[in-house]
């Protein structure tokens, strides 16, 4: 069970800000494949992973990162702070 958070246009495309997901995915990339298979909104949000960033327990990570022990996963576009 992990909390999955979505921000900016990822949130808008999926239509959710956060959800609890039951998953056996080993890596971020695996989880993305599982989510894309759910329905077209997820497929649209994750269509271009190069346009996405991911944080595991609030630290930036890459798509190959393992999910073991992770409690919070967030997907969002490149940040535009400042």
């Amino acid at each position, binding site marked *: 069970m992990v909390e999955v958070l979505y*921000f900016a246009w990822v949130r808008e495309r999926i239509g959710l800000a956060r959800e609890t997901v039951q998953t056996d995915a080993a890596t971020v990339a695996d989880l993305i494949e599982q989510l894309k298979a759910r329905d077209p909104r997820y497929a649209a949000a994750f269509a271009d992973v190069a346009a996405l960033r991911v944080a595991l327990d*609030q*630290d930036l990570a890459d798509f190959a990162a393992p999910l073991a022990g992770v409690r919070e996963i967030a997907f*969002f*576009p*490149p*940040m*535009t*702070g*400042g």
Partner: protein
Amino acid sequence: MRITLQQAAFDPGQETAGFGQGRADVGAVVTFTGLVRDDSGKMQALDIEHYPGMTERAITAIAEQAISRWSLADCLVIHRYGHLAVGEPIMMVATAARHRADAFAAAEFLMDYLKSRAPFWKKEIGPDGESWVAAKDSDEVALTRW
């Protein structure tokens, strides 16, 4: 070090009143203020979304890196989220150091990292709808100089 994340407007002058002053070891204070700009002439507002929890963590990590790298005497970061009008301050950083080169470098470092590594997302609100501001390649390139 002070890091403030807030929805409310702020006054850059008031926030830096006395910053780095009255100390014998500070010779240079640099501040940067980012304001809502409207290049199209049609923007009505800027909405800023952020990632509560991670935002504070990310900014603190960036500020601590700046402090240790340039031996800063003090460091301040203020960043707003929510609904902002054109011309309003979005955020500011301030650095206090012995020499001007360090104060300038640390402020530019903070800005470059806050741009691309702090979880904020900007959306422009105009008469024809809304659009997310795209990250610029040049902001990613700017990180390579540090």
